[in-house]
């Protein structure tokens, strides 16, 4: 009962944040520069949280997340630009197709472990990118023009839904099975957990939301091209998860927020941008080697309920 009160408190906070930002945007208090930053922030949070499920919870070191984002971005662009269907259909289609891409890639590669899995997923992400480059229907390497349809409402609620789905998944018997795989795969197997199944499920859910993020991203930018989804993008997402603390959902959200702000401000200093960005990363890793929040959730730093709460 106390737990459900906490849940509704979160919902209330989310609605207030949404309403305040929405009001400020429509009244012009937040200009297009900042509203763009806020929407990209939502996209980055979705990416971070979806990769958190794969790396932080299930312990599968996948570094090809931008590949699924690319699938989502291009599928959604095809749906809205070529098929003239509504944006919401495009978001769902992007997620579903990315999910199938995740299954396709996950079923063969998740038999691998550690470094081997990392290399395989990186390779697959590059394959996706190269395939897109060679499809003239979506503009090939030159890219594809997309009309701006993303609004704060779409971005924010996609983010909230992602967080709720992944938090609820994690705090269920299925999430526990995934954590057990992360902690000790042999023991999880010996306790009757179908480890391959749960690795693929985590991968598919992660890919679904990466696809959704891709859809929102592409309809914010006017223009998408395959180079936006290269391995540097994958590493960006990986950095959110590692910097926030492996295994901490709120940590990856926090890291995504901070790094989006840092990189937005640094865009004004293009010469020194990557140097400062790298310094920030090095400093955090030196002083907080387990990431900003370690494996803890941000709520554990306040007095909300007891640690390791069961039901939301």
């Amino acid at each position, binding site marked *: 009962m106390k737990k459900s009160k906490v849940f509704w408190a979160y919902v209330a906070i989310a609605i207030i944040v949404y309403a305040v930002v929405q009001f400020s945007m429509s009244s012009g208090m937040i200009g297009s520069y900042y509203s763009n930053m806020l929407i990209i922030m939502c996209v980055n949070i979705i990416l971070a949280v979806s990769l958190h499920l794969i790396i932080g919870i299930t312990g599968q070191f996948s570094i090809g997340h931008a590949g699924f984002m690319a699938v989502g971005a291009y599928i959604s662009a095809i749906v809205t630009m070529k098929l003239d269907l509504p944006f919401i259909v495009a978001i769902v289609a992007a997620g579903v197709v990315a999910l199938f891409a995740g299954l396709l890639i996950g079923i063969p590669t998740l038999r691998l472990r550690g470094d081997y899995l990392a290399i395989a997923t990186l390779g697959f992400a590059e394959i996706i990118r190269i395939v897109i480059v060679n499809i003239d229907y979506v503009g090939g390497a030159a890219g594809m023009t997309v009309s701006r349809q993303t609004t704060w409402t779409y971005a924010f609620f996609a983010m909230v839904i992602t967080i709720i789905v992944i938090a609820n998944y994690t705090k269920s018997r299925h999430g526990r099975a995934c954590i057990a795989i992360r902690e000790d795969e042999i023991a999880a197997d*010996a*306790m*009757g*957990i179908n480890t391959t199944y749960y690795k693929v499920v985590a991968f598919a859910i992660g890919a679904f939301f990466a696809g959704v993020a891709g859809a929102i991203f592409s309809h914010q930018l006017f223009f998408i091209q395959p180079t936006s989804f290269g391995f540097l993008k994958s590493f960006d997402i990986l950095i959110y998860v590692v910097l926030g603390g492996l295994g901490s959902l709120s940590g990856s959200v926090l890291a995504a927020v901070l790094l989006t702000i840092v990189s937005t401000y640094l865009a004004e200093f293009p010469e020194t941008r990557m140097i400062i960005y790298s310094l920030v990363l090095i400093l955090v890793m030196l002083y907080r080697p387990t990431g900003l929040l370690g494996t803890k959730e941000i709520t554990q730093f306040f007095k909300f309920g007891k*640690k390791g709460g*069961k*039901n939301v």
Partner: protein
Amino acid sequence: MTNLLLNVEQLGIQFGGLKAVQNVDMQLFEGELIGLIGPNGAGKTTTFNMLTGVYAPTTGSITFQNEKISGLDPYKVTQKGISRTFQNIRLFKELTVLENVEVANHSLATHGIIASILRLPSFFKGEQKMEDESLAFLKIFGLDTYKDEFAKNLPYGMQRRLEIARALAANPRLLLLDEPAAGMNPQETHELMELIAFIRKEFNLTILLIEHDMNLVMGICERIYVLDHGQLIADGTPEEIRSNPKVIEAYLGEEVVE
């Protein structure tokens, strides 16, 4: 005591040119408490790994409840009713004590992924059932007061007991214990023996036990199998094993036997 539960025939495994275990025959009847002993490197844990599906045997077959289980994946073997503990403790360190047991209770509840995400009533019912059941196991092992503690923070003896609790939660017919008393003091070992005897009655279990502590093995096992260099060298009651010259030789060296 009459039904054949586990039948192992001519079991063997080869790693490259090394025959780690060969020609092992074992029959376990329902309700028995059997010991598996042997010097270091005799192949005891390798045998366990084959019984639980971690290794696929190169020769021979394993039949459990009249069903061939050799070659199945470990999680399927567990679902058929064989569960185990590990010699080097393998708890889920970053999960709480309660959650460790709940992982093994996985198939007790049936709520699916969608129900969990949408928090449907079946989710709450299922999770509650798992929690109640897991707490019951923790109570038997005296661990219920530590249920919210991370497994890694438990003292050594309790971690060993938690491993057994977790293995029990997987609802086995046959429980394999790999050196459950390793590193325990005599007092703890004694308590553990009583606990093993208790859960065997309470859950109507068949237990196969690897152990170095001779007092423990001789004290509670009805029959004992002895492995040496990957082969069975003796089997029988504790008295027979105690006086078997081959066993003494394997453990203490030839000179002593003369």
